[in-house]
């Protein structure tokens, strides 16, 4: 009996520790809002949140994390340039409200220089508490 309880405790602890981080709250992944979309990995989250407009770029986020700053959505996106050349891109965020409408007017494109074989974290905070979701939009400036 004692062994059975001990085994059950070990199994319960193992079960807890295997829960993937960032998936604790339904409708969120890595702190970012995901709605009803099925997100089971960082790649899924990046695919869901990142869009390309205009000329395509090879720069892609490798990681995205979100948190709250008061009632605003705070976002960190780690961009990666794994090529051996300097890349110039432009990016902007698009803010979406709970109804799927635009929560804020279109942002301006922000130019960014990425050195060869480098990572760069871009971060922002939502301009309004009406913003419940976002998209990161990238384009090449080459």
């Amino acid at each position, binding site marked *: 009996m004692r062994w059975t309880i001990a085994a059950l405790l070990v199994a319960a602890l193992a079960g807890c520790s295997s829960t993937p981080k960032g998936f604790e709250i339904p409708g969120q992944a890595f702190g970012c809002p995901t709605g009803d979309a099925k997100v089971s990995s960082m790649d899924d989250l990046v695919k869901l949140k990142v869009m390309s407009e205009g000329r395509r770029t090879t720069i892609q986020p490798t990681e995205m994390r979100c948190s709250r700053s008061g009632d605003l959505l705070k976002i960190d996106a780690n961009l990666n340039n794994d090529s051996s050349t300097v890349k110039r891109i432009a990016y902007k965020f698009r803010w979406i409200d709970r109804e799927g409408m635009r929560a804020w007017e279109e942002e301006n494109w*922000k130019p960014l220089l990425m050195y060869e074989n480098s990572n760069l974290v871009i971060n*922002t905070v939502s*301009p309004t508490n009406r913003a419940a979701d976002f998209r990161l939009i990238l384009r090449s400036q080459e």
Partner: protein
Amino acid sequence: MSAQPRTPGLALALALAALLVAGCAAPEKTRYGDAKSVETLTNQFGSTDLQMIAESMTRSMLQAPVIVSGNLPIVTVQEVRNKTSEYIDTRSITDTIRSELQKGGKVRFAVDAVGMSPQIDEIKRQQGEYYAREQAVEKGQMVGAQYRMEGNITSIVKQVKDTKDVYYKFNLQLWNIRNGLLEWSDEKEIRKTTTRG
């Protein structure tokens, strides 16, 4: 007596030259563009710089403790000093920052020094004999700001042969008017390099 070309050949040559000049002038074409696109026509201060500075400052200020507290602080906009060697309409930058913050609904703005004169003029006008007494605004009802926003923009310009490098630094501060404490401050740096050829 009018001045006529002496020979028909000369008249013909003049007419042909006029046609040639008219033909060489490139036709003008005007199109609307994207006001939010990245503008790199010259390395002087441009629309992208203004937009990037305003957005960066606004988003940073939204995270300042005095604004996160949610008490709708009242701010007045003071001067952003232009310490660069070029003409920059710094009022345009603070106007954009003010609009963004106002739209976000986290900050209220009190009339600033520039707007004070028309504000007083309007109060005086309403107190004139042509306005209904009960609806006219009274003197002494304006609300003073709790914080003042000021800053400066500086630049370092260097040129060697065909390469020109411009570095801008925009600094914005939010001061507590009552106790003189600096409540928030942030900077935005921009580097632009132009090479010829």
